[in-house]
């Protein structure tokens, strides 16, 4: 592995960037023609970077509404000869999996690279699912760069490999690489002039019956040939050592730092694989020839360990282990590795860490001040509390992912895209008398929620869906959603698929919203409460005016200490003085949405605004 070179030559350009930049720059320098994606952390910025450079690098960008569509669109573009890039997060690969199972059999033309942001440790996701297993399922090559410069080089190379083998090439990057920044050396390249044409090819594209089997065979044969021809492995430290370590991806640099800091360079031999599928086993067989024991160091399930055991079964004489020493959850840590090596080599670990004792609660963040989700969930809670008081029936709130899933977590589950409307309809189907509602943003609605709603309509399910329309895919960086473009008549669309009521509400009047939710829950059919409130981080002109001209003050003389604004609405701009028990509004944090004014039963919050009319 070569660290980034600080002295770039004349045809090179050294720039600071993170993993997202590295991927985008590599695609530009490889002459990418077509890009499709669905935004997701940790690779949420890749397409923003491509978009920013579109005039210079000229590519078409398809902002797909889900990963399934994104995958199919790049397959189409590639068949026309376009170098194509597909970007998504790990869980997006589940959505894209259906078409990608066929992408190996159609003999793509333009290089097709699939960049997937993985998330061991679940730093920015609802799960840390290990998607490595898709590589053998799709039978695609998989590259796992170890650092930023290798990520850049890996994406450039992936386009070449893809064209060489006529298969899509997967490139995985975990969050700790995607969000790492450093110097990246770009290699300037002439953008080739390509003409795009679709050549009819029924032999490969009408994939049915005997042709499907034949195309599958051709796919596997191409992959096997590729397996023998490509070697991206590197070896480090003492080749005579009898103890071997095998790494892949980001665990490589952590492992090397630990080995070097413990002075174990002469006692271990290390093999790293960047192309982890299909595995060229020859370097491993050479590596293993003089080893007594080999340990695979990797995050998650033990994909590389499994592949090595599959390919090398019966061909090596040493012990080969991995997940026996490291857990299949979370990220491999420096601490785990130090303890592992200390145990194996009988080292005494010395640490400079201080034995400190203190209490520091987790700080997971929350809805922003002025966010429409906060008063919306207040309204939902109030409506369900009232129903519970009157009927004893406990309300259920289906949760979706995105900003509406941020703390204080008012929903009953947080799993995956469209889990709100999907799971809620199963429950509502089974328990029609229970007050069950689903929630989700407009990003989720267009991702797959619309089909879920129509399914509920077709099955005659009584369901109330709260649609948070903040006109942006806010959590991943405010990518525009269809409602922001003004091209969608959402009301007509929903009524057109059979939704019985579409009710527009202002989330900053949560008391009225609670009444509306309660009434709507009692009605038959599929109803949508359309919450129209822009993201607080993308304020309207009126929101900016309020911020400048409106003042709010909490009058403690009138406060009845009900704590409705503090404890139920939970606005962070409202603080509690631990000594006096009095509340106050922090005007540096307050966004002047006035939701607190609406929820206060004692008129203790006073507003000064020339344009406020209650």
């Amino acid at each position, binding site marked *: 592995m*070569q660290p980034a070179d600080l002295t770039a030559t004349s045809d090179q350009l050294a720039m600071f960037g993170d993993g997202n930049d590295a991927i985008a720059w590599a695609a530009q320098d490889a002459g990418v023609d077509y890009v499709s994606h669905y935004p997701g952390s940790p690779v949420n910025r890749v397409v923003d970077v491509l978009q920013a450079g579109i005039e210079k690098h000229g590519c078409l960008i398809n902002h797909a509404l889900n990963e399934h569509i994104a995958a199919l669109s790049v397959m189409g573009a590639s068949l026309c000869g376009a170098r194509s890039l597909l970007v998504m997060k790990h869980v997006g690969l589940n959505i894209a999996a259906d078409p990608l199972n066929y992408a190996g059999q159609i003999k793509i033309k333009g290089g097709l690279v699939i960049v997937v942001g993985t998330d061991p440790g679940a730093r920015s996701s609802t799960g840390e699912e290990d998607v490595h297993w898709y590589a053998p399922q799709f039978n695609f090559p998989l590259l796992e760069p170890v650092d930023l410069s290798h990520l850049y080089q890996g994406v450039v190379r992936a386009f070449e490999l893809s064209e060489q083998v006529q298969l899509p090439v997967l490139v995985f990057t975990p969050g700790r690489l995607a*969000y790492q920044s*450093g110097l990246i050396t770009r290699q300037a390249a002439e953008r080739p002039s390509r003409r795009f044409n679709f050549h009819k090819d029924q032999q490969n594209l009408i994939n049915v019956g005997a042709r499907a089997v034949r195309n599958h065979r051709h796919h596997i044969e191409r992959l096997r040939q590729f397996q023998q021809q490509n070697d991206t492995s590197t070896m480090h430290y003492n080749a005579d050592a009898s103890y071997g370590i095998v790494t892949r991806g980001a665990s490589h*640099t952590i492992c090397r*730092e630990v080995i070097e800091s413990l002075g174990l360079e002469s006692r271990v031999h290390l093999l790293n694989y960047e192309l982890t599928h299909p595995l060229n086993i020859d370097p491993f067989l050479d590596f293993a020839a003089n080893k007594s024991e080999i340990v695979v160091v990797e995050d998650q399930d033990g994909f590389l360990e499994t592949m090595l055991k599959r390919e090398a079964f019966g061909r090596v004489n040493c012990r080969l282990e991995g997940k026996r020493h490291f857990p299949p959850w979370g990220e491999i840590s420096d601490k785990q590795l130090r303890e592992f090596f200390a145990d194996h080599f009988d080292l005494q670990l010395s640490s*400079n860490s201080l034995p400190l004792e203190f209490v520091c609660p987790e*700080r997971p*963040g929350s809805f922003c001040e002025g966010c429409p989700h906060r008063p919306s969930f207040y309204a939902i809670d109030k409506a369900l509390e009232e129903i519970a008081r009157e009927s004893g029936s406990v309300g259920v709130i289906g949760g979706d992912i995105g900003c509406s899933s941020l703390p*204080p977590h008012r929903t009953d589950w947080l799993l995956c895209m469209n889990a709100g409307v999907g799971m809620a309809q199963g429950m509502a189907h089974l328990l029609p008398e229970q007050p069950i509602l689903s929630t989700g943003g407009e990003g989720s609605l267009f991702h797959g929620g619309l089909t879920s709603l129509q399914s509920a309509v077709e099955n005659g399910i009584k369901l109330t869906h709260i649609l948070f329309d903040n006109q942006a895919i806010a959590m991943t960086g405010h990518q525009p959603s269809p409602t922001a473009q003004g091209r969608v008549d959402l009301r007509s669309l929903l009524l057109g698929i059979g939704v019985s009521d579409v009710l527009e509400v202002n989330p900053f009047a949560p008391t009225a919203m609670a009444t509306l939710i309660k009434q709507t829950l009692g009605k038959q059919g599929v109803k949508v409460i359309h919450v129209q409130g822009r993201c607080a981080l993308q304020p309207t002109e009126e929101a900016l005016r309020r911020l400048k001209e409106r003042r709010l003050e909490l009058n403690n003389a009138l406060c009845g200490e009900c704590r409705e604004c503090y*404890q139920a609405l939970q606005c962070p701009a409202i603080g509690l003085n631990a000594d006096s028990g009095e509340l106050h509004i922090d005007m540096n944090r307050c966004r002047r949405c006035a939701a607190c004014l609406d929820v206060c039963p004692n008129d203790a919050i006073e507003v000064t605004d020339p344009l406020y009319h209650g």
Partner: protein
Amino acid sequence: MANLIIAGIGGQGINRLARVIAECCRDAGLQCQYTVHKGGAQTLGSVYAEIRTNRLKRSTLGPGIPAGSLDGLVALDPWEALRHLPLAHRATPVWVESETQPLFRDRTATGQLPIEALSPVDQLNSLPIPIHWKGYRKLALKRTGDVRMANYFAGLDSLSALNLSDRPRYHEIFYQEIAGAAALLPETA
């Protein structure tokens, strides 16, 4: 090799400050990498940047700072200083904004110690580590009229932590990297 953490919460400009400091390191001929951790935080959530520098051209650094290897900690909130102290050693210099930002927890949850009862300032003062208490926010308000510029002043201490002395260059890079800063920062802040 030097390892620095700049810590704070969403909205305080940690990401951009890390970028400025990294550019300063590059300017000084250091190899530098940094990783920003922000999770799903839009606001109020913990955000921190791990900055790792090296005078050697060739070296292998993992993405994270090992325990006991932290050479400097600059925090824009006392809670966020506490959070990273397990990585510190006895000689780690720690600079901390004295003003605490709201630590949001579900206020309807029961059985948890009220956050108001825990003082991060008292906890930090009770630890066997010298703390340099700072008023970055007040200073920013006084000198630039905008508390959001607190990260500029925290950056000056970040330079000290990394033994970088070219303050005029830092000022210049801050101007370049952070849109809007030029309108607020005097030429020689």
